[in-house]
């Protein structure tokens, strides 16, 4: 069966709706005041009614049940009030402000950028100074100077590569203006 067939889907939905409405109607006759029966799946249409998720036909049946059946009405009123109470729960303003601060973290972000810049500048200066002193040292041979120079040059290259990558990422980030 092709599930995407609109005609079949419509027929199926209509049949399902009729079954549910019949079920609710049957409940009207067979309802017992016993609390255990409130767990009966037939009562689940009350939830659909509360949420506005029933068809017009189903909703009319449930309206009738609420008007005529005491147990049904009681359950409807209780679930309705419970739903209102749950809806009224919300996070405290302070909690949301705290959340905002945590997400934005302006101080931490600024500190991180500043720290990264200091480390980068310091590393370049230190490596450059060490290389300069080694190159002007009269007791060191050419091979030693070349090896140390390779180490220092490699470090600077790696640092430059990381900086370049971060700049490229920042430019390409299409959501950079979205607050996270």
């Amino acid at each position, binding site marked *: 069966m092709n599930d995407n067939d609109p005609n079949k889907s419509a027929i199926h939905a209509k049949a399902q709706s009729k079954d549910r409405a019949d079920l609710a109607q049957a409940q009207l006759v067979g309802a017992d005041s016993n609390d255990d029966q409130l767990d009966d799946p037939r009562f*689940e249409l009350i*939830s659909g009614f509360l949420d506005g998720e029933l068809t017009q036909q189903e909703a009319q049946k449930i309206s009738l049940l609420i008007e005529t059946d005491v147990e049904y009405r009681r359950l409807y*009123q209780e*679930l309705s009030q*419970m739903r209102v109470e749950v809806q009224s729960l919300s*996070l405290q303003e302070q909690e949301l402000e705290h959340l905002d601060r945590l997400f934005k973290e302006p101080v931490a972000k600024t500190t991180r950028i500043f720290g990264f810049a200091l480390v980068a500048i310091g590393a370049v200066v230190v490596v450059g100074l060490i290389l300069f002193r080694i190159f002007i040292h009269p007791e060191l041979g050419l091979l030693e100077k070349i090896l140390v120079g390779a180490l220092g040059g490699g470090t600077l290259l790696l640092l430059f590569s990381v900086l370049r990558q971060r700049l490229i990422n920042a430019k390409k980030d299409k959501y950079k203006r979205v607050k996270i």
Partner: protein
Amino acid sequence: MQVSEEFEECRKQAFSLALRLLNNRDDALEVVQSSIEKGINRANAPALDHPEFKPWLFTVVRNKSIDILRHQKRVRKVEHEEFHSSAPVSTEPDKNLQQMQLKETLEKAINQLNMQQKEIILLRDYHNFSYADIAKILGIANGSVMSRLHRARMALREILVKKGFSLGGEK
């Protein structure tokens, strides 16, 4: 910026769901952050301004929360002072106190529900998702939402009745 405002609201709601499921602020924050990062980095995730983004984000947040709960093997108790009522607060001290007590009872009752019951009630009654969206988020059939939600509501009602919470139905 329009996207940012909608995104901000969506993020807060996602945090709220994670917080209620996990009962831990740090875990909830981490779940939301990593879910949003996933949304940004994943090529197949809906764009932030797409209508499908919110259900998608809630799906990821819900799944990540379940992963954490499974890892922890237990649900930590939420600090009741983290929540309050957004309903207009009465100026009368007695009524105010009564409202607070009712909310506290409700918070505790919600936390006594199992994960499946808790998440479906929060998605519908707290976050106002349609049944179709809830089905997407929970990965269940559309037709199962109503019955699962009703069972969850009945379970919550039973807990509240046991706690002496008056739901105001006709007797």
